């Protein structure tokens, strides 16, 4: 059980503490933690998620510049702690429309109330976003304005949500909607690794089926794919019934209201990627040349946009200059170079060339950067997964059904 949760900014400031049990945890644990972070290089995203401090075991999750730190002194599944912190981050992002230091401080009362509902005595209590939303109204523009005008500002519901008693806790009992529509969105991320010889080592798709449902009553949906056999791994939202999937690989579910992730999946061993990035580094006598070529490989049929190439110059490079023939290059303080290309122009392939000056006593480069590639393709699910049909039962009238797809880069990297 978690004894206490702290929110820390990325500068180590304690923004908030919420004691979960009667055994209070002193704040000094945060300074211990921060010293630990500093001793590990100062980047909270690079440190261990489970740390044994002299007095407590710490779980930490770093999201959007905020460290979510939880303490316990007794054995508990560490993934439970981590998953809970991730859930807190998700819920807060959802409630506050984003996550950063200011937004936490500005809405600290709601954060407290949420934490109190989400955990009791160190054990997760209510984490279902739909119920939480009914218990505590999220701050929105209307309520903010109302509070300014009337001076009243209560977001605490006076009624227990009915769903707490139902067997489908993710859905309100009597949902009334003027709209009668459901959208299914395939969002895929492509992970790929090209080795130093330019050979595709690994290419797979991590995808999510995101559903946005605004349906009245208690609708019963079935979603089937034309080619479910390509799915390597799957994970489901609690609303998905296991039996139909086991038997026929059909998703049968009563959806929560609003947006949710119905399913995530993985398709492995893809053979090709939509774009190629070819870095080349040559070096001799203290000077190095770098050139990066980007082009479209297997045209997916839709435009590829937001193409970026990012890499970190080795520490031994003392200065560098780059000239792209398309797009812009930014060099950040930690020697990270980011080449924003956007779309590949017609008739020429983007190329970045540059000179690297090595530190005085170095003859040639002996370490080589990894190039991270970003891109986005609207309207394409690169895995080839196809939705066969979506049936909606139990609604008064046939709802509007919309389908979309998107592929973007995930952990897509090219070694040089």
């Amino acid at each position, binding site marked *: 059980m978690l004894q206490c949760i702290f929110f820390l900014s990325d500068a180590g400031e*304690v*923004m908030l*503490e919420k*004691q979960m*049990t009667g055994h209070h945890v002193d704040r000094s644990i945060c300074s*211990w933690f921060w010293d630990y972070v500093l001793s590990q290089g100062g980047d909270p995203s690079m*440190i261990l*998620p489970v740390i044994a401090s*002299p007095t407590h*075991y710490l779980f930490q*999750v770093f999201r959007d510049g905020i460290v979510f730190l939880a303490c316990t*002194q*007794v*054995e508990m*599944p560490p*993934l439970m702690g*981590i*998953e809970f912190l*991730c859930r807190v981050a998700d819920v807060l992002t959802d409630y506050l429309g984003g996550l950063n230091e*200011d937004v936490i*401080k500005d809405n*600290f*009362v709601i954060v*407290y109330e949420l934490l*109190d509902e989400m955990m*009791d*005595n160190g*054990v997760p209590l209510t*984490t*279902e976003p739909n119920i939480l939303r009914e218990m505590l109204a999220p*701050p929105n523009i209307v309520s*903010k*304005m109302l509070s*300014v005008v009337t*001076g009243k*500002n209560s977001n605490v*519901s*006076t*009624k*227990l949500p009915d769903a707490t*008693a139902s*067997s489908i*806790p993710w859905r309100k009992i009597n949902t009334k909607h003027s709209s009668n529509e459901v959208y299914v969105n395939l969002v895929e991320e492509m*992970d790929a*690794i090209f080795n130093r010889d330019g050979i595709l*080592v690994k290419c797979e798709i991590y995808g999510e089926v995101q559903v946005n449902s605004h349906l009245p009553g208690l609708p019963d949906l079935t979603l089937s794919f034309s080619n479910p056999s390509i799915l*390597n*791994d799957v994970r489901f939202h*609690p609303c998905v019934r*296991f039996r139909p*999937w*086991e038997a026929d690989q059909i998703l049968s579910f009563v959806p929560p209201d609003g947006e949710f992730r119905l399913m995530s999946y993985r398709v*492995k061993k893809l053979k090709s990627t939509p774009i190629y990035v070819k870095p080349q580094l040559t070096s001799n006598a203290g000077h190095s040349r770098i050139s990066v070529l980007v082009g479209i490989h297997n045209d997916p049929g839709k435009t590829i946009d937001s193409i970026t190439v990012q890499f970190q110059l*080795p520490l031994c490079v003392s200065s560098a200059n780059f000239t792209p023939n398309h797009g812009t290059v930014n060099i950040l303080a930690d020697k990270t170079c980011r080449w924003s290309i956007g779309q590949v122009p017609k008739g020429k392939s983007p190329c970045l060339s540059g000179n690297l000056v090595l530190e005085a*006593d170095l003859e040639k480069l*002996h*370490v*080589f950067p990894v190039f991270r590639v970003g891109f986005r393709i609207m309207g394409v699910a690169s895995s080839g997964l196809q939705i066969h049909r979506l049936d909606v039962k139990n609604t008064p009238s046939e709802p509007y059904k919309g389908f979309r797809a998107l592929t973007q880069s995930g952990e897509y*990297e090219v*070694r040089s």
Partner: protein
Amino acid sequence: MFHQFSATAESLSKASSLVLRIGTDAHLYDDPDDVSIGPLLESRFDSEKVDALKRLLALLAQGSDVSQFFPQVVKNVASQSLELKKLVYLYLLHYAEKRQNEALLSINCFQKDLSDTNPLVRAWALRTMAGIRLHAVAPLVLRAITKCARDPSAYVRKCAAYALPKLYDLHHDEDNSSFEELVDILLNDHSPGVVGAAAAAFKSVCPSSLFLIAKSFRRLCEILPDVEEWGQIVLIEILLRYIIARHGIVKESIMFSLSTMSTTPVADGFPTFSGTSGNCQTLVGTTCDVNMITLMCKSYIDGQIECFAQTGCSNSNDDKLDLSLTSSTNDDVVMLLRCTSPLLWSHNSAVVLAAAGVHWIMAPRENIERIIKPLLFILRSCQASKYVILCNLLVFAKAVPPFFSQYYEDFFVCSYDTYQIRALKLEILSIIATESSIPIILQEFQDYVKDPDRRFVADTVAAIGLCAQRLPMVASACLEGLLAITFYESSLSSSSQIDGEAGVLVQAIMSIKAIIKQNPDSYDRVIVQLACNLDRIKIPAARALVIWIIGEYSVIGQIIPKVVPSILNYLAWSFTSEEPDTKLQILNTAAKVLLCAQGADSLAFRKILSYFIELAKYDINYDNGRMHHEPGGKILNGKMHSSISSTKSSRIYLPGSLSQIVLHAASGYEPLPKPCSLLNTDLTAGVVNETNDSDISSGSSIEESGSVYDSDHSSISSDDGNESVNDSNDTESTALAVRNDVQDVREKTLVDVSNVNVCVDDSNENTKGNLSAFISTDLAELMPKLALESWLDEEPGVSSIQTTQQASSGRISINNLNCTVTPKLHSLLDPTTNNGLRVEYAFSYEISTISSMLVLVEIFFENCSSEPIKNIALKDGESSLSVESSDQVLGESESLLRTANVPPVLSTEEIASLDPGQRVKKLIEIRFPHHLLPLKLAVTCNGKKFSTKLWPDIGYFLKPLSMNTSAFIDHERQLPGMFEYSKRCTFKDHIEKIAPVKDDSSIHSDKIILLSQILASKVLSNCNVSLVCADIPVSFNIDDASGLCLRFSGELLSNSKPCLISILVEGKFSEPLVLTVKINCEETVFGLNLLNRVAAFLQ
């Protein structure tokens, strides 16, 4: 230009965020106490009370203690406004335990709320009432829980289940029956949500009362998929424990099948076993997994010894076997496995891992593979889960590598992975590599070798070595690759001394060494190749390793014996320019060669060895301490990683547990219950006796098997590491004996040589029986009980030792040395903000005579205006609070500080008038609330009041404690482990001061004294401690300051506990130095804060 842009962008974003903040509670967080909270709480309007409570919450969030408002807050518990209620509850839960008496006032309201018609109100009241932890009302809470456990609302029943552990934690006696009864009621609830909560309650209230599960086991299994995700995690665990306790281990499971294979090789006794034995054979064929699995079972199960005792003797008696084992066709087992398998698809990774754990332990081994893919899929969720999953996968992979061998791609490292994740992936890859996948994996490793993270590269090189040892078919290919890396790295490292570069080279040679060790005869060419490239390898540790290899295998094959003489000649030629650790290995190798040599050669070798020893004698004159310390130390450092992982890998805990991640049993960790320890009433008492009998009868066979696992379980590279040291330890004893003689002589003649020996205690602790320990104990006797003072006394220029504290403590007289201790002046009040009064303060070195809680501060008042300022006084800024509440504050802090009657500021008399330009010094005594938190002060002058904050300096919460060096080391030894913290920082201040001093050996000593002065004055200017000693090394290298060690001691003002500071210098005078600051102090928090402070002012 960019600055301007960014500035505009910043202000724009600020403006936009300001707009967004309208209507939020932003202003409350920023200035929670800009209005007086007390009156707001007394207001008639709920909205104002809400506002006040939000302010209190903001203060609480920021870490202030606002418990003084408790009486006013607790009154509002009766409010009808739910929002107000919620906020009051939040406040109450935080402070109630501290303010027990006032909290009692709220009980009546809770009682009333418990019969409210709104279930939400009932639930909140129960949650809060159980959460405020008042012993006095425990019986009332129990009654409330009993009532709520039968509430019509499922949510209230759920809260009742949550309240049980709270009450149990607060108060429980031997008679657990009322708790058990309630858990039983809740476990049998028809609502899945309540069952999940009841499972959590079961786990913390009565985890061993597994008989409660017995009657509803099947229903619990069926309801499992509908329980909330968090409840599922706990419930799965309980059900697993129940099955083990009730039915025992599943015969076909991996736990049983392989472990019995190893303990009782003759498995004929198992009729059911023949079906799967073929599979098992293939598994056993792959190396070392049997030991691993046996170790794993041993770790998983409580009282495992008994369980295997039974199986050990069961060959003769099948009936007994059936008692402790069950088959996979057992209905309960089937049920549990069936109901947990869909949970492998859960979107909650903790549920997936919990379900996978059940299958890992219970499922027939041919069905286990289904858990692999879901587990690997979690690797694609957040970084934090990734690490935890990898830690668990590592254990699984070690046990049964074939399960993972086809999924090697999932463990390829990508640039997004943190270092720890990379290290785990490498380890798994080297375990699961098979003959078919190894080419691809090695290809991948080749890419990693060029990674910018050199630590990771070193690990990769180690992993290549491990792969080569596991799969002999690729050994020669790996060896070639490693040699290439060695030569490539050695060509590089000569030109650049980038951090970590050396580690790669050393690791490469260590991997080579490990491969050679497997089959030395076939790799003689490799050894020759290494030897021939010896002059290219510049890193001392690497050279030392190569020389060790030559010595170790000097008689292998045909070629080596022929080259050895010329190598020794070469070494003889280069000996004087070698680093100490290399020299040691040269001596070692020469001795080994001599021992193996025969005939005419031996004469030549004897000559060479005596030449070396002769050189060493001369050498030792210069640097004895380093000679003895670093060889062992450095070689060990290089191997630290692998040796740690091997000792830790033998610790296995249940999958998914916290203990498995931190690798020690966390408090509350329970292994699985003893199989069949839960006896149904159907089972007769005779069964118990039978099991006991069998325990005793076969005790011996177990001990045998136990020893097998223990001895055979350490990874190869690591025991090499120790061995190399041990070997050298043994074989070179002759050389050492000679050197001891030399030392004896040396001790008489050279009195003024100081030795740096800061790591004595470390090496004594860690390296039992290896070289460095051997030597350090040796040294401790030999070493003169030196220190700066003895040395300074002889140096005419530096001899004056100030006696402010105590002459014997060797505090350097800084006045005489032209570098004064300058306490820093901090500004308290700026003349521009008031009428021209400047107030500054500095911490005094004197100690208060009134109370140990007080810190003396010198305050300087200066009139910067043109007119006289009248009636200047300094007061405590908190006195604006009402008398009563400040009393309460004191009352609260009393327990912490024990000096309730000392006011925060012992103020001095008023200054009647201060003329323009006049400066007056006053001494005041201050009791800071905390060593980091500022004290609010108010300066009044000319009738006006200015509030300000006085920031404490942690260095002045100490007072000097004089001791000599040996007392210091004694104290240091008494404060090991968690009382010792260290931090590295770079120090540059000395460069400009030392730079003018010419590089001349005669001035070398001056330079190092100058440096110690600079450092000492730096520390003494910022902390009120005394200098114990400065250990100054004498090294070959004139420019080298490494080894200088300054020690300071002080004691805490508040409780007189000693606090030791040591600063160890590394680096050269001409460059920024690396300082390792180490603090030993019993007060962990204080010590850590002090460490930060010291590191900060040194930087």
